């Protein structure tokens, strides 16, 4: 459904079967499908965990935690059943990569789930897909059914004596459910309210059993690591940042699309060479480097390597791979308002700093953008945001605060330009050029 793009700098690992008909199980098998699971079945669980650890694979959902390390936290012995949970509740604004994985290569996710299960001693896994992605849930249901029919799932998989069940699960519209503990609540049939940690899901997760929760892209990377080796995968990116990333280029670029680039690819190059530069002949103003919860970078800050550690050093985050490019005709007050409107809508209301903070910030930014701002609002916006940081059960409060703080700090003048009842300078400036920019 969604158009595929390509660029010579791409290194296709997770996306190597995109557009090749791999939803069909026979085709998937021709393309090295289910070889990794069979290899894993012949390995010691600890060896699989170490292999994934050494590969430098880090969580593709945004947190960037070492995947093998996460698996190693699951206790060997457990009175309650252990589970693998694939997080396919992709909803971070700017992010549309897991969609392509489910659409083109659903079996790679299933394989990743099974391998994670073998490595941690689990015998069941769930693939949770957001409600809006109904067509992908249909694809996943068929893929699971086909895998069962061949004996790749269920009792005695591949005649190995190991049992593993994989089930699909659909959401019904909620950003917060992408947070691991809220995801488990949702799967258990409840409101997606976060749980306090510790205990972490690896110890107490779904129905109280130890649970590994990984993003869909993370799990889809795992079979490739099993077949290609830890060293190969690790060397695709800079130290401690193994592999590639599906970067979703969006916003004001000439060639938006999902590109698979090596971890550590230069952001400036990504925007100007891969993305073809800024659309409509305009200039760059800002970049959301990894989904709406990341602090924004200004045009002067983009000569940076896109890996987890370099982005932290640059004062932002690699996040979920959603790269949203913003041109110089965009009002940053309005942009901040739109981000806050989103978080206010998605806050579950469980933690007061997030519930009240996002609501007050949305109200203040709305008034401000419409010309009703006073000077002390600017500091208040920052102060309120800073007071949400680290004061909530889940990171939704942080996610709302971080981009807002960065926009106020880096684009303060634009806030000042809205003061004293002045209309938004950007909406008046070039109405004619605000038409949708389309290729």
């Amino acid at each position, binding site marked *: *459904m*969604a*158009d595929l793009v390509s660029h010579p700098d791409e290194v296709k690992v997770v996306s190597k079967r995109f557009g090749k008909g791999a939803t069909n199980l026979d085709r998937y098998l021709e393309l090295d499908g289910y070889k990794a699971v069979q290899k894993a079945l012949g390995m010691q669980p600890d060896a699989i965990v170490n292999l994934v650890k050494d590969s430098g694979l880090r969580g593709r959902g945004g947190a960037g935690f070492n995947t093998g390390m996460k698996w190693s936290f699951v206790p060997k012995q457990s009175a309650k*059943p252990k589970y693998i949970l694939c997080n396919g509740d*992709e*909803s971070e*604004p*700017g*992010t*549309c990569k*897991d*969609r392509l994985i489910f659409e083109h290569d659903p079996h790679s996710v299933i394989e990743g789930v099974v391998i994670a299960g073998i490595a941690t001693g689990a015998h069941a896994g*769930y693939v949770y897909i*957001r*409600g*809006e*992605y*109904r*067509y992908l849930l249909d694809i996943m249901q068929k893929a699971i059914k086909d895998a069962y029919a061949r004996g790749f799932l269920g009792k005695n998989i591949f005649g190995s004596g190991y049992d593993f069940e994989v*089930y699909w*699960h*659909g*959401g*019904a*519209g*909620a*950003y917060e459910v992408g947070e691991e503990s809220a995801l488990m609540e*949702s*799967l*258990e*049939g*409840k*409101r997606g309210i976060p749980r306090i940690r510790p205990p972490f899901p690896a110890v107490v997760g779904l*129905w109280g059993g130890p649970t590994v929760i990984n993003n869909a892209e993370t799990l889809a990377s795992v079979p490739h690591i099993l077949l290609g080796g830890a060293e190969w995968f690790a060397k695709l990116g800079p130290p401690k940042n193994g592999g590639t990333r599906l970067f*979703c*280029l*969006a*916003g*004001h670029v000439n060639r*938006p699309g*999902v590109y698979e680039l090596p971890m550590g690819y230069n952001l400036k190059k990504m925007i100007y060479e891969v993305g073809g530069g800024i659309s409509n002949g305009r200039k760059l103003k800002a970049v959301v480097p990894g989904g*709406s919860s990341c602090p924004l970078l200004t045009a002067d800050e983009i000569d940076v390597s896109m890996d987890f550690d370099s982005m932290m050093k640059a004062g932002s985050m690699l996040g979920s791979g*959603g790269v*949203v*490019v*913003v*041109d110089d005709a*965009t009002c940053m007050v309005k*942009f901040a308002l*739109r*981000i806050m409107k*989103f978080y206010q*809508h998605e806050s*579950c209301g469980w933690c007061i700093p997030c519930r009240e903070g996002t609501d007050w910030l949305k109200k203040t930014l709305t008034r401000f953008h419409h010309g009703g701002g006073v000077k002390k609002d600017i500091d208040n916006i920052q102060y309120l945001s800073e007071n949400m940081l680290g004061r909530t059960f889940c990171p939704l409060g942080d996610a709302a605060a971080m981009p807002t703080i960065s926009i106020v700090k880096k684009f303060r003048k634009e806030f000042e330009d809205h003061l004293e009842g002045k209309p938004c300078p950007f909406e008046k400036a070039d109405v004619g050029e*605000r*038409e*949708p*920019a*389309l*290729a």
Partner: protein
Amino acid sequence: MRFSDQFEARFADMLTHYPTKRSVLVPTLLYAQDEVGYLSDDVIRELAQRLDLTELEVHNVISYYSMLTTKPRGKFNVQVCTNIACLLRGGEELLEHCERKLGIGNKGTTADGMFTLEEVECIGACSWAPAVQVNYDFHENLTAEKLDKVLDEYRKN
């Protein structure tokens, strides 16, 4: 309360997927809504009974998820994304265009019951923005003209 055979087969199958009955609730609510059009009192009562929950517990879950509704919608739910990636490429203008064309505001339904309009948060079409979802179908890289054609096609069905 009768659902389709497909619904019943899927429901029975899903009950075997989890250690607790309640776990089937969220996806089941959405499948029920697809058949009935909205989550009516009858649907809520029926599912509460089947899953050993109170109706209040089911209501609590419904009110959390943005796709679930207890009010009838039009035959086609036109969901216009205006989140950041779509905003930058004309999502708001598309929403305004729909309001004018359909003569309704956000969450309104046309008098003939054909269309409901809804401003939605990120639907995962950022690299193909601006995007609109009509029921479950994605329509991407839109302009006002392209969207007009899309809506006219739905109107014919």
